[in-house]
């Protein structure tokens, strides 16, 4: 076993049953020759440091500045996203849905936790939680309100339930006041939550306030 996966424990607190159960399972599988612990380290490192929502933000920023790329992305998302280098596990069949002043899109997986890993990384806890999975399809306006996203009644809400291996990514609306922004600057406005559809992309004012 690698040595770096238990250093956060408080020395006064014995490890929980769960921690012991996982450790025992890993040592059993290593002992039987079924698992190479360095592969586990690599898998963890891949999703902690290499694959995450900054990938998706680059896809969205490109679509905002390049109309040809945007139409390709809406027509064949898998190929358009692959052209930026993002391919693979849980992104084999991509579909991008566009927010407009008339339509707002929201993505969920009611049956488990399907999520487009190559562009967003692993899903946040709330996306996998029972309340989100239960409510996103039945009360999307209530869910959006909980995230601070208020939409006029005239805006149609489309909820995408990821029941197959098709993975959905929301193309948020480009914020006002960014006409002369570069692609790199625009990518800073694209949050993970805006690509799931629970929030809008950040406004220039929000970014200025935060820095």
């Amino acid at each position: 076993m690698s040595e770096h996966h238990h250093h956060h424990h408080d020395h006064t607190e014995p490890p929980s049953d769960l921690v012991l159960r996982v450790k025992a399972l890993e040592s059993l599988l290593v002992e039987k020759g079924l698992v190479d612990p360095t592969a586990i380290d690599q898998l963890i490192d891949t999703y902690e440091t290499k694959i995450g929502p900054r990938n998706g933000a680059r896809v969205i920023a490109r679509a905002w500045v390049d109309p040809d790329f945007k139409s390709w992305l809406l027509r064949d998302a898998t190929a358009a996203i692959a052209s930026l280098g993002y391919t693979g596990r849980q992104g084999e069949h991509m579909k991008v849905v566009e927010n407009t002043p008339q339509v707002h899109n929201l993505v969920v997986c009611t049956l488990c936790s399907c999520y487009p890993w190559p562009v967003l990384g692993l899903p946040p806890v709330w996306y996998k939680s029972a309340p989100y999975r239960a409510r996103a399809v039945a009360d999307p306006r209530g869910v959006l309100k909980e995230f601070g996203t208020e939409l006029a009644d005239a805006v149609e809400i489309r909820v995408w339930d990821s029941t197959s291996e098709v993975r959905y990514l929301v193309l948020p609306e480009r914020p006002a006041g960014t006409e002369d922004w570069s692609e790199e600057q625009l990518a800073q406005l694209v949050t993970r939550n805006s690509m799931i559809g629970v929030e809008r992309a950040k406004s220039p004012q929000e970014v200025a306030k935060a820095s």
Partner: protein
Amino acid sequence: MNGAHDLGGMHGLGRINAEPESKEPVFHADWEKRVFGLVRAVGALGRWNSDMTRHARERQHPADYLRHTYYENWLAGLEKLLVESGLVTAEELASGKASQLADEALRKRVLQGKEVAAIEARGSSAAMPTDTPPRFRPGDRVRARNRHPTGHTREPRYVRGRAGVIQKHHGAHVFPDLSAQGVRVGRHLYCVRFEASELWGENANGNSAVYVDLWEEYLEPA
């Protein structure tokens, strides 16, 4: 199966209480990291597929499924598959001690650290051809069949018996109901739009719709 995993429309689960995006770590404990890595590394041995993996998590007592955290459900599913596939015996799992080494052929297939980046970047397509032509076309009105299989299915309860309109034919993909039993066949897959009022009646949100990917076996003409 009509399990606790089929959550669409369930009441009483409370607020979502999302952690702020800028503060949320990818994993919340070291054991979660190891479970994630173990599931993926053992999965790479090819002894089961992703539908079997999902079904193993679903086949818990509903109270357990809802009580567990996400990675506890992953761990429970992994333990179940290890024993059912014979990779590990129940005695080995209980004692934590290996009674014998895995077969040499299997040990040669173990995922190596240096293979991880390429395997993740490659993924694996769910597209699988079928000989039969698609039964439905975009614009067709369909009804999700009122079926309650006791095995794995990706037809959520909240659409069963409800009518919608075909938006898109995705082509033929591996049919999950059979794949979870180890039989890999392609079936036509469609994206179907259901009006919220059709799904939720007088309790529906206004001006909204739900799009669900459904295999041809789940659908009939409406």
